[in-house]
């Protein structure tokens, strides 16, 4: 029953963020007018046009990316037992970004090709992070800092290659420069229209695996002893995360830190059981992304910031706080 209340609160937050996102902008549009644009579209009204063709797609992209990344972070933190794990800290987003760019700049791929390349890149980036952690022999324990360090290393490497790739084609550079910075923008709506089933599939797989994935959080051996085929479940779970996170990157570029931060905000309220943590993280992640998007657009008006840049700023601060609380503070448990 408490869980229903929590879900309700998260949903209300998301709704409020959506209203803010749809009505605030270069020209504010009253919420009533926004609602009218949604249910009774008037082709004559400029406001209605703005809501439907610009703000709504933009909001939907923010919701999609936020939900998928936050859910992914919750699962990755559970499987690795590492509180700093997330799609953006373990090389998934950077890999998907590079995959995308290679497909566009190297092969001039269409949307489907770009999606496939982003997926391949996401898996590749994650695999590279694991390989670097293993090769450096910094420790086989995935719970420690080494995994995060190698994730950061991989991320920087892949971002560097992506940047170089961008320089090779001056004509298309401008178009992808903003995407590279994590840009939630309505002109990526066609990407969302193609890729959203991936996020849905990812979410459904993760929900189905919620219980065994939670068990893995108790340690691999105990999970095995309680009947979980740990290898298969954690592979399926991680694959679903990479699927969702890569699709989000393919849509709006690497929107960082939602996946890292949101599970930490939500866990104290819902508890660590993924059956509850996952859906609430998704809702709160979506709301956070929407609000950051509003903030990015409005805080420095008339200039607009890329949402990804703003989230990086906010996320960087949160990351520092988490590292301090979990690793550096005197008496930290890890």
């Amino acid at each position: 029953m408490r869980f229903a209340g929590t879900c309700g609160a998260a949903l209300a937050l998301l709704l409020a963020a959506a209203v803010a996102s749809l009505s605030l902008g270069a020209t504010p549009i009253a919420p009533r007018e926004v609602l009218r644009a949604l249910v009774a579209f008037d082709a004559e009204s400029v406001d209605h046009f703005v809501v439907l063709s610009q703000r709504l797609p933009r909001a939907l992209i923010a919701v999609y990316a936020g939900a998928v990344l936050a859910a992914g972070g919750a699962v990755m933190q559970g499987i690795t037992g590492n509180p700093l794990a997330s799609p953006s800290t373990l090389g998934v987003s950077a890999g998907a970004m590079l995959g995308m760019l290679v497909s566009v700049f190297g092969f001039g791929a269409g949307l489907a090709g770009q999606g496939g390349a982003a997926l391949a890149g996401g898996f590749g980036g994650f695999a590279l992070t694991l390989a670097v952690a293993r090769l450096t022999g910094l420790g086989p324990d995935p719970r420690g800092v080494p995994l995060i360090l190698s994730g950061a290393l991989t991320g920087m490497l892949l971002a560097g290659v992506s940047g170089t790739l961008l320089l090779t084609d001056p004509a298309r550079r401008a178009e992808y420069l903003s995407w590279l910075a994590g840009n939630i923008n309505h002109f990526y709506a066609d990407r969302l229209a193609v890729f959203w089933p991936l996020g849905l599939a990812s979410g459904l797989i993760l929900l189905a695996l919620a219980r065994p994935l939670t068990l893995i959080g108790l340690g691999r051996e105990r999970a095995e002893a309680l009947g979980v085929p740990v290898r298969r479940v954690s592979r399926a779970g991680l694959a679903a995360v990479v699927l969702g996170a890569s699709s989000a990157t393919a849509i709006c570029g690497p929107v960082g830190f939602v996946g890292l931060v949101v599970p930490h905000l939500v866990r104290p309220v819902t508890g660590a059981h993924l059956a509850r943590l996952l859906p609430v993280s998704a809702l709160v992640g979506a709301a956070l992304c929407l609000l950051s998007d509003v903030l990015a657009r409005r805080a420095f008006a008339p200039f607009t910031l890329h949402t990804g840049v703003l989230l990086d700023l906010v996320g960087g601060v949160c990351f520092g706080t988490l590292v301090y609380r979990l690793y550096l503070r005197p008496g930290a448990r890890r």
Partner: protein
Amino acid sequence: MQYETHCAVRYVLSTERLKFSIGRSAILHDISLRFRPGRFTALVGANGSGKSSLMRCLIGLAAPEAGRVLLDGRPLASQTRRQIARRLAYLPQSSICPDHLTVGELVELAGFARTGLFGTVRAADREGYREALRTVGLAGKAARQLSRLSGGERQRAFIALALAQDTPVLLMDEPVNHLDLKYQYAVLDLLRDLVTGQGKTLVVVLHDLNLALAYADDAVLLKQGRVLAQGPARQVLDARAVAEGFGIAADLRDLGGRRLCLPKGAQMIGMP
């Protein structure tokens, strides 16, 4: 086949010439053991003698290099994790304790072996979970966070998790570690009841030989990965075995129907 069916009746769990290595170092040599239903077996031996490794082989977490483990007469290696988990519960020596998981949620996770991904939790299951918490004295703490309990309470929560699995065979690696005197006896009384009352099979690693003598029917004494002695606890745990297995001299005395193991050190400071 005939032989295996016969085995299934008499021995729930057995090992045949088990050999286990980690890397190049051999940890267990030629271990052949049989565990009968309705018996409480204490697994004893010095630190590093291979007790935990043997436990991990018995539940299939460690793969033997040679030999095999039979559960219900069938090779363990041929059974799925869920099949095993419905027959065998295991309490590891140490536990990872995730943040923000309540005691109640922990114990409910025991149901996975029965329900799998899509099965539903029945009212009877819930009653079982509550019962498991009651027996370890944590009924009032179901809503508490695991990571905020004391070491002993946490250990009891994990014991409740193993009990909630409701399996005919229980393997417990040092279950009374971290427990205060009262709960050491409470837990062992409970385990004894499971054996005597419900005919369960228990294999329990114990360090305190007096507890082993008081509670176990049988004992297995390990030394450097070999079985030094096995059989009824009072026969296995004699002065010579203690000397050989642990490298200390001890007196074994009968007192009020109980067999006590008194290391010589304790006698010098004036204990009976």
